[in-house]
Structures are given as structure tokens and as C-alpha cells.
């Protein structure tokens, strides 16, 4: 039996892990021939990684990236001023002073639109870059990157290629028809606490010695596995990969205590700020797609009170992230995008039961993009005087994802293979019912 155990040890664990990914992917990605990974050499492909800051619930565009200080109290509530920034002509909501000092690093799309006001459908469209209504459920952009830049494409990182801090966003926005192989690794835990107890990787109260002893015991007591060795290969390989993360250097990436207190304070000692810091460390260590799932933007009630609390947090964390990525020389190769599934009704709902809230608004909203080949200091499109509809140059979710795919060297017009006969595209074919404002050539 010992020779069986040492066999596993003798083979390269990572190689086995990779192998199992490839075969499963091949299985999932069906038997039809002619599949080539749709990655193409592209002179504009500058991005190696993506950090997505997902403002779950839908942040208000006119209180953040598209202020309308002249629209009056019914629209602005108490937020009657806007801040000028270090770029002429770009103004921001008054609670975003740190970002105002970094406006040369990012561009703002002020004409995002998909006209849908349901969380689930709107999230689906923004996360996947596909319209709803197809019988097929498409994977989120993170899962596509995981497929095309992850293990199947030779990824050798310490940690999974697609990671969400800290809780998953929900199924409709994740792996879709690609299946659970391409779902994100959700860290769980809270990066603002010490230690950042990443679910499964860092267990409080168990020493590495104890981990090793338990692992040995697990091997010795595996009576069924010893009788039927071949039946549990997949189980063993997955276990080895898991222990590589628990006992290897993987766990160290999440150790935020390795950063200076000064820097940690600049990010903000809260869950969001420290998630931004963790995201930078993950990019540094090769992760390909990181989502920070930042909840709490669905402000039907208590809207302005919530903004007063959350916007400074967002401002501090995001502004520090952009500056810190730039300091580390990572901003040019890392796309950062920040937004939610829609905006919020520009006209404040003062009436009961909302008493000063804002509803869902998919007709026009804003998204921030930076790094990875996106130029900074530009505005794309515009909303009308009250932020109620697109005034200029609409941008649909698929226009944005197609642009990001191009920057990543992924052909947006390439196809997925799947279990049906027709081929399925990375981003949808424009035409018919599907409208488009075109890819964002003006800022790449």
C-alpha cells in the first residue's frame, strides 16, 4: 500500500491536476471536432488579468460617476454639488474625492444601457455580455477567461485562475453551460480580519503539523480506496491540488499582514478596502480574473444614508487600488471595471413607502473602466440632463465585454463548442433584435 501512496507523491501533483482539468474540459466541451481555443494574437491585447468590482444591487449613476448637480432636489437630494477632477471636463459625485484625484487613470462610460430593471436578468446581461431569452445560459466573463486563460491554456498559478472575494454572485452570473469547473473559487472569510480565513485554505486552530498528520491518517484509513484504487483517481488528484493550496505558498497570498500598515490603512480597514488589496496581491501572483462582490447597492429605502456610508468606502478602496496597481507596474496589464447590473431611478422616490429611495434603472447607467489597455481620462457617451436616458453613443453590455475580450487577446467573435450542433459565440452576433453601439474603440 505504501508504494501506492508514494506513487501519488512521486508524480507531479500539478501536472495531474492540469490533466484532470483538460480531460474534463474536453468532455464538457463536447465531442464535435474542430474546436480551437478562440485566442488570437492581437496587437491591442495588453491585458493579462481583470479585476471586476461588482456593485451588487445597482449603484446610482447620478450620485457617483454621472453627477447632475443642476437637476434639482427631486433628482439629487442632498447631493447638489459635483467635484471637479484632475482631468478637465470630468466631474464626479461629491463623495468620491480620492477618485477625483485619479481621473487620469480611468475612463467613464456614461451611456451603458440594456433597458432591463430585473436584478437577475440585468446581472446576467452585464456579467455574461449576452442578451437573455436564449435557451442556453451563458458563462460569465470570469468563467470564459477561466476557460481560455486557465488550466486548459497552461495556467500554472498557485491559486485558481478565477477568484471571487468573498461570496459568489449566484449561478446566473457564473459558469453557465460551461459547468462547475469554471466557477470561481469563493474565498469566504473577511479580509479585514486577521487572519483572513479563506474558506478551505486557511483554517483557524489547526497547525500545519496537525494538517500533515491528519492527511497521513486519511490516507492510511482509506480502506475502500486501497481495495479499488483506480476508481478514485479524480478524488485523489483533487485532494492533492487542495493540499497544494493549504500547505503550499498559495495560502500566503492571502496573508495581508505581509503588507505595511500604512498601505492597508490607505485601502481602508473594511471588507471592501482589504478585498481590493487582496485583489492586487492575487493579480501579482498570476490570478486571471478576480471579482470583488461588493453588496448593498439596492437602495430602495434609506438611499442617501447608505450612500453617505458606502461611497467613501468605495472611493478609498478603488482609488488606492488604481494607484497601487500603477505603483506596482500592474495597471497597464490589468483591466479594472467597476459597476453594477443597472443604475437607479434618477428621480428620487420621496413618497411612502420609499421615503427617499431609488428604484432599479436599466435605461441608462455608468461603468468605470481602467487599465489593461483602456485609456484613462476619457468620457464615453452621455446621458441626458437628468440622467434618464442615453443622449449620446449607447453602450450595451456586449459592447463592453467584447472590448475587454479584445484587450485580453480573446476573439469576441470566436465560438464556444457545446453539446448542440450550432456553434455558440463568445459575444453575440449583432443584428436583428440585438442592438449595439459598437466596441469602445475610442478608449483603447
Amino acid at each position: 500500500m505504501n508504494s501506492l501512496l508514494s506513487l501519488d507523491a512521486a508524480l507531479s501533483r500539478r501536472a495531474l491536476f492540469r490533466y484532470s482539468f483538460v480531460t474534463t474540459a474536453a468532455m464538457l466541451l463536447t465531442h464535435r471536432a474542430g474546436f480551437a481555443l478562440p485566442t488570437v494574437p492581437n496587437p491591442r491585447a495588453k491585458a493579462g488579468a481583470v479585476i471586476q468590482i461588482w456593485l451588487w444591487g445597482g449603484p446610482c449613476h447620478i450620485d457617483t460617476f454621472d453627477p447632475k448637480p443642476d437637476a434639482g432636489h427631486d433628482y439629487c437630494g442632498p447631493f447638489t454639488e459635483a467635484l471637479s477632477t484632475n482631468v478637465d471636463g470630468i466631474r464626479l459625485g461629491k463623495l468620491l474625492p480620492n477618485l477625483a484625484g485619479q481621473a487620469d487613470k480611468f475612463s467613464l462610460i456614461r451611456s451603458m444601457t440594456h433597458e432591463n430593471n430585473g436584478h437577475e436578468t440585468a446581472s446576467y446581461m452585464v456579467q455574461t455580455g449576452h442578451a437573455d431569452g436564449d435557451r442556453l445560459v451563458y458563462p460569465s466573463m470570469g468563467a470564459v477567461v477561466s476557460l481560455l486563460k486557465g488550466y486548459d491554456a497552461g495556467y500554472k498559478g498557485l491559486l485558481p485562475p478565477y477568484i471571487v472575494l468573498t461570496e459568489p454572485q449566484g449561478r446566473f452570473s457564473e459558469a453557465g453551460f460551461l459547468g462547475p469547473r469554471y466557477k470561481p473559487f469563493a474565498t469566504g472569510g473577511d479580509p479585514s480580519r486577521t487572519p483572513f480565513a479563506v474558506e478551505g485554505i486557511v483554517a483557524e486552530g489547526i497547525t500545519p503539523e496537525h494538517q500533515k498528520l491528519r492527511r497521513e491518517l486519511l490516507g492510511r484509513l482509506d480502506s475502500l480506496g486501497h481495495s479499488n484504487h483506480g476508481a478514485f483517481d479524480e478524488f485523489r488528484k483533487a485532494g492533492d491540488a487542495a493540499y497544494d493550496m493549504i500547505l503550499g505558498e498559495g495560502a500566503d497570498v492571502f496573508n495581508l499582514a505581509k503588507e505595511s500598515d500604512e498601505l492597508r490603512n490607505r485601502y481602508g480597514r473594511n471588507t471592501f478596502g482589504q478585498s481590493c488589496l487582496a485583489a492586487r496581491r492575487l493579480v501579482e501572483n498570476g490570478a486571471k480574473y478576480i471579482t470583488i462582490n461588493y453588496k448593498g447597492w439596492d437602495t430602495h429605502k434609506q438611499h442617501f444614508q447608505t450612500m453617505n456610508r458606502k461611497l467613501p468606502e468605495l472611493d478609498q478602496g478603488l482609488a488606492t487600488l488604481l494607484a497601487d496597481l500603477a505603483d506596482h507596474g500592474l495597471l497597464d496589464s490589468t483591466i479594472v471595471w467597476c459597476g453594477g447590473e443597472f443604475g437607479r431611478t434618477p428621480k428620487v422616490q420621496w413618497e411612502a413607502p420609499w421615503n427617499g429611495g431609488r428604484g432599479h434603472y436599466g435605461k441608462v447607467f455608468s461603468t468605470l473602466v481602467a487599465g489593461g489597455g483602456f485609456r484613462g481620462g476619457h468620457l464615453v457617451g452621455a446621458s441626458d440632463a437628468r440622467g434618464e436616458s442615453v443622449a449620446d453613443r449607447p453602450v450595451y453590455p456586449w459592447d463592453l465585454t467584447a472590448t475587454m475580450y479584445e484587450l485580453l487577446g480573446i476573439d469576441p467573435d470566436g465560438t464556444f463548442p457545446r453539446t448542440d450542433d450550432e456553434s455558440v459565440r463568445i459575444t453575440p452576433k449583432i443584428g436583428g433584435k440585438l442592438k449595439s453601439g459598437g466596441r469602445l474603440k475610442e478608449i483603447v
Partner: protein
Amino acid sequence: MFQQALLIFVSAILSLPLLRAIPVEPYETDLPLGMVSAPSAALDNLVKQNSGGIRRARLCSDEVFLRRVFLDTIGTLPTMEEVRSFLADKSTDKRSKLVDQLLERPEYADYWGMRWADLLRVKSEFPVNLWPNAAQAYDRWIRTSLRDNLPYSEFARHLLTAEGSNFRSPPVNFLRSAGDKDPAALGSIAALVFLGERTAGWTPEKRDAFAKFFSRVGFKKSGEWKEEIVFFARPSDNEPLDATLPDGSKVKIPAKDDPREVLAQWLLNSPKSTFAQNGANRIWFWIFGRGIVQEPDDFRPDNPPSNPALLAWLGRQFQASKYDTKQLLRTILNSETYQLSSIPRDDHPADAGYTSYPVRRLEAEVLIDAINQITGGREEYMSRIPEPFTYLPEDQRAVMVPDGSISSSLLELFGRPPRDTGLLSERTTNVTASQRLSLLNSKSILSKINKSGQIRRALSTAPNQEEALNRLYLTFLSRFPTADEMKTISDYQPPTSAGKNQKLMDIAWVLVNSPEFLYRH
């Protein structure tokens, strides 16, 4: 390089089951089965004739049978008391008596109801959009039908032809679950579920002909929020409908008749219909993890059954029993084929001809329920959409979750099907590194084990160490520990820094993380 090759060679020799001359303890037995009923014996003969000369595995032990048949029939682990009493029972027909008992337990309908709800895509939100109260009414109807052992033919007839409100006439939700609700979409879900055929692979003519039977289905709103009525839309011009059945025969359907009834009539009664075979094959798939036609929802001429005689026989049995699902299950579960050990005797692909029982990881819901059963743990199942959020009582078992939109992160992690397409392949039982991290080392799983009052009580009331270990093994693995295992455990010392109960807690952790716990075997 050479060393690696040598290691592989040596390990291959060691693992060759050919060398085994005696049953593997505690998983196999030498004792023959008692009386095998005539239908089960017939099934065994049909399987043996198709085994391609591969030697069958031995019979599984009572311990293995008990655990396996609990999991396969009611999706639940046997309790410690159930294990002790079954092992102590000396009667020769105890296995078949157990099958009869399990099929009458309420968990039978819970478990098989979950499987059917996957197929029928019971889900309130995106992309199926049944809406919560309709999804829950539909789920309850499915489980009640299974509890009452409604003949499968009647079950299908209701789903195909029902009329009325989505809240009050639950089976109408079957047609409501089709994406576009046009006749082609309605036909495609009907073909998938009841014929196991994917209309995407059909000729356009065949698709159109099949869709015609759904061309007089109407949908309308009522005054109640999110209520929808499905009805037979009788044509105002009173023109009959010319339609072609899947076997090519032409029918003229009078305007007063619902064409769905005509299709259902053909489907359930025509000798040319594959309805019975498809239904039986799917049950076989649910028991063995691999259909005689695989995938079971991909019947087509170029995907033939691996054992045509067996499939035909199962279909005939199913039809002759008036589509009695429990009777078909009884035939399968009492067969020798079902009761083979999972340890192959010859070196061959495990699923080649049902010559050994194929191991599979427990499904997400069953696994989480099993962990909660042995630890007394709970789990929160909720849906954020639509608002207000839906929460289920925390002591509810995962197999009972009535709506695909209601979930938990553990369910997602372990591959619960999203219920987007109704394909059986949506459910995955792969083992991933993230799943291993969760079971080995996550706070949620570790605290379930470490904080379990149930485990602590069982251990603290044990008169001695041996009995404490017995209780752990009986509860977790449905068997007593072997002498070798006892020896390994007595040699094990956790670090001195750990707490005084640490040793037994480490054993509990090991058992939850062993393939014997995580897989049906």
C-alpha cells in the same frame, strides 16, 4: 523517469484485482443471494449475456448493500440503529424485505421528487420563470404523485395535457417552463422528457410536425398577480387540424379536440412509441449512473443501446405493470446485478457491461443531507430573487428544496443542477479541488463536525474506546471498523497542543473525507 515507470508498473500489479482469491472485507461476501424473483433473475440473464466475457464482481456485503440501497432509494444514510439491526438479522430474505420497506418510506418521494424536479426544471426565476408559488405548487404535485406511485403514464398525461391555473393546476407548469412558449419550444421539452430526444437534431419537417400538436395551447393572464392560465385554444373557424404522428401516420384532429390528447394517446399506447423504454432507461440511469442508452436524454439512431435486449425487456416490463415505477425498482434492486460489489475483478472499464456496481460521488443535496444527518448540522437555503427573499426552515433537508432558485453555496459547490435545460448532464458529480478544500478545511464543514452535540453525546456515553469507534464507523460508514483500522487508529497521536477530544474528532474528520463516505459504492 525510470523510477516513475517502475512505480506505475508495481502499482498496477498491486492493484490488479485478478490476484484476489477471496472476498475483500468488509465490502464483499461469498454467500449467495437468497431466492431471486423471476423478473430479477430474467434481468440478470439479460445482463450476463451482454457482459462481453468480463468476469462479474463478487456480491456486495450486507453492510454495503444496506448503505447503497438506502442512498439509491431514499437518498439517506441508514442510522446506527438501522445498521445494527440489519446486520443482526439472520433471515435470508432480509435484503428484499428492506427494499419493500424503503420504497414505502416518505423519503422515497422526497428523493425521486428532486430528480423529477430537475428534469422538469422546477424553478421560479431565470431562465425558467415559473414564479415562486407556481414552482412550489408544481414541486408538491410531483412529490405527491411519486408518494402515491401514480402510474408514470398518468403522470406524463397530466403534464402533457393539463389545463388551468399555474397555482391551482400544478402540471400546467410543464408547458409554462418552455422558453418561448411557441409550439416548437413546447414540442421540444415534451420530446426531451418523454421520448428522450433532442429536437435540435431532428429534421425541420419532423420538428414542425411534432410542434403542431401544441399549436392549440393558449396562455393568458388572470387578475391575480403572476397567475397564468394554460388552456386549449379551440380554433374559431372550426377547421380540423391535419397532423403527422412521430411514426409517420397521418391524423385529422377535429376542432373540438385538443391535439395534445391525441399525441399523448399515441405516446402512451402505440407499439412504435419509445415512451416506456425511455422511462425505464432513465430509472436504470438513476440507479446505475449510466443508461443503457447513454445519455438517457439523447435517444437517436446513431446512439444505440448498449444492451438492446435488456432495454426492450425493461420497457415491456414497465408497460405490462401499467407503468408501476416501484415495481420496476423492485425488480432492479433485487437483482444480482444491482447487488454486485463495486470492486471489479477484471481489469476493464468499470461501466462496460454492468459487471460491477459503479462508484459515484454523492449528489450535492444527498451529501449535504448526509453530513447534517450525522452531525445534527443545519444549512440555510434561500433565494434573493424575487424580493422579498425566500428562506426555508433550516432543518429542512436539501433534497426537499422545492425550487431551483432556492440554494446555498454548498449546493452550488457540489454541482446541484441549475435546472436551466432539463438535461440530465446538468447534474455533475465530478470532484474538484474547491470541493476538497471545502470538506478538508473549511470553517463551515469543520464546525459542523467539531461542534456537533450529536457526535459528542454518542462518544461521551460510550462505555469504552472500542464502542466509541464502533459508533463513529456505524454512523458514518454504516459498518464496524476492521481490525486493521483499529490498529491504525490506536497508533495515531494528534499533536499534544490539541484538545483532549481531538483524536476522535480527527477520526470523524477522516471518515467524512474518505471516498467510502463521499461515494456511493
